[in-house]
């Protein structure tokens, strides 16, 4: 055990003693992934609308109440509003309107009974009727929200606009145009509006659902990237330099050399995975704009128990990845071949990341016994709050068992050289 630790500490010191290496292993992957996650909505915007976001909202016949509402929330929203009258809008040709919509503009048309009219007056009349006890009163005030329905990215954007701007506007209308009806305390019946815990849980359920599709793939991908980089350095390069031979000529068994290096890889990959996870967490909580296409919406949150499961599953996964990488390294003779073969799993994990991102079904039971793929599924379960004790144990056991089998096979082959 002492020799395993000596080798592990030597490898750890090599990484921590070199800030460039440490940065490349610990921060660079997470930072790059964070940047990619934040660039993704912009990229989708560009691909679908030809422009980099901007969240343009074209208001048609916006009433005074809406303009003053927008003024009151100015600076807290990402939308760029512009106003036109229905007369000006009617001069637009069909092609011009189509082009506007295609560029990602959302049209918000305020009208009364589908005709231009005094929106605020209609709303005031409605609340007046309610206040006077006329329960049959109805309103013809309509807000029509138009967007490009052929663009799959626009529907969530329009929905988000409705949720974040139009729903609170309804409250604003009640407060400002409700007259006697508002003073009767109608708003007090809305519980969630003043319950911060409910608000956080609302955000969490949305954010974690998104995270369950994005983070598992990212974590597994980055963990393999880290394992690949470390195994290349600790085994492939040392073999190439002949330093590995110097190590195996010491009175330390090859098994202990392997385990020492694997221990170091495991420790670094686990720390790196947790740093990545922490940065994802920060990324989510800093995502105030909460764009509808955000891969990590605002409010991602795990309970301490769920976080422990993530750590618990990271270690066997890193062990198995390390064993696979070592097997690849000792199976190929040339450094160039080694590097190429080491990249195959990286491509597979990238592929799995994309598959998982667009998968909406729960994993099958069989998937929990597929090595490494099972880690992705268990991470997904954690974020969806669907984790089960049995599946957590099975995943860890399968990965450790397969890791040991691969390691033993590699060692046997290496000893028969």
């Amino acid at each position, binding site marked *: 055990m002492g020799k395993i630790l*000596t080798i592990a500490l030597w490898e750890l010191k090599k990484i921590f003693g*070199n800030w460039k290496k440490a940065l490349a292993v610990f921060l660079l992957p997470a930072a790059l992934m964070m940047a990619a996650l934040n660039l993704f909505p912009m990229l989708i915007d560009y691909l679908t609308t030809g422009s980099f976001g901007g969240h343009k909202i074209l208001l048609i016949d916006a009433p005074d109440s809406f303009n003053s509402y927008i003024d009151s929330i100015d600076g807290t929203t990402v939308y760029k509003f512009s106003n036109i009258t229905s007369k000006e809008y009617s001069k637009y040709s069909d092609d011009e309107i189509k082009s506007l919509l295609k560029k990602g503009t959302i049209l918000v048309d305020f009208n009364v009974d589908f005709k231009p009219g005094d929106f605020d007056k209609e709303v005031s009349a409605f609340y007046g009727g309610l206040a006077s006890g006329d329960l049959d009163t109805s309103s013809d005030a309509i807000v029509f929200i138009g967007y490009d329905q052929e663009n799959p990215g626009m529907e969530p954007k329009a929905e988000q606009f409705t949720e974040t701007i139009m729903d609170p506007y309804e409250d604003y209308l009640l407060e400002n145009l409700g007259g006697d009806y508002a003073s009767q305390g109608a708003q007090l019946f809305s519980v969630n509006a003043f319950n911060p815990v409910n608000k956080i849980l609302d955000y969490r359920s949305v954010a974690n659902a998104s995270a369950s599709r994005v983070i598992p793939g990212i974590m597994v991908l980055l963990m393999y990237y880290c394992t690949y980089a470390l195994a290349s350095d600790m085994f492939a390069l040392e073999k190439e330099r*002949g*330093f590995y031979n*110097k190590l195996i000529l010491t*009175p330390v068994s090859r098994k202990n050399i392997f385990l020492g290096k694997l221990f170091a890889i495991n420790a670094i990959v686990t720390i790196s995975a947790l740093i990545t996870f922490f940065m994802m967490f920060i990324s989510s909580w800093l995502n105030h704009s909460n764009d509808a296409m955000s891969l990590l919406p605002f409010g991602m949150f795990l309970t301490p128990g769920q976080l422990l499961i993530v750590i618990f599953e990271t270690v066997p996964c890193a062990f198995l990845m390390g064993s696979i990488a070592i097997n690849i390294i000792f199976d190929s003779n040339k450094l160039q071949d080694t590097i190429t073969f080491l990249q195959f799993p990286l491509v597979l994990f990238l592929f799995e990341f994309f598959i998982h991102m667009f998968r909406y079904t729960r994993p099958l039971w069989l998937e929990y016994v597929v090595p490494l793929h099972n880690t992705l599924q268990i991470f997904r379960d954690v974020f969806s709050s669907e984790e089960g004790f049995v599946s957590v144990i099975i995943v860890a056991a399968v990965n450790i068992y397969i890791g040991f089998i691969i390691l033993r096979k590699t060692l046997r082959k290496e000893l028969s*050289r």
Partner: protein
Amino acid sequence: MIKVTDIHKSYNKDTETVKGVSFEVKEGTVFGLLGPNGAGKTTLMQIIATLLKPSSGTLEICGLSATSEKDILEIHKKIGFLTTEVKLDPLSTPNKLYDFFAKLYDIPDEEIETRKKTSFDRFGIGPFADKKIVELSTGMKQKVSIAISLIHEPPVVIFDEPTNGLDILTSKQVSDYLLELKQKGRAIILSTHIFSVAESLCDDIAVLIDGRIAAQGSVKELMTQTNTNSFEDAFFKLYVDNHKE
């Protein structure tokens, strides 16, 4: 001290790199392996150093069988292997490397500093002890390699082309050090293709051609066997007589 008996090594069915090599090396002697490139010197040296397993044959070092798994770690305590192919971790320092290997060889903490000082003083490594390996000259790197390879003061020393790529001064220092080790009673196996090194250092020389020992003996004996007047001529005659296209 070292007994090599009928060693064969083949990497595949068609190619046999080492073909039935046998010899013995006694303590306090230097045994030289001389041969052209591709003769199988490095493979044979790696087999003797236990880095490779022979396809057949036996190898005994200090009475321990190198083909037995349980003796291997014990053998590692008794051999020091040096090859120019080894490149030390470029970002490490001689000090750190020495300490690391000292721990792997179970050298007591209180003894590490004394051994390090003696060894570093012997090779003039002291002023460079805290410099990164990448900043050292080729000669200095080789000296650090020697210091680390012999950190555990082994009775058997295996040096594969130790003076390759070194300047005259450093080569001389390495040769002198080998003579010093010989006087201390170490059994030394040295592979080289430099005639002067073989002539000046080796008590016994095996000329390896195409994986076989073409001739073995002292420099004088080899010249007598081949009816030549110089060691170089003896080698070339052996090569012409034994090399198959």
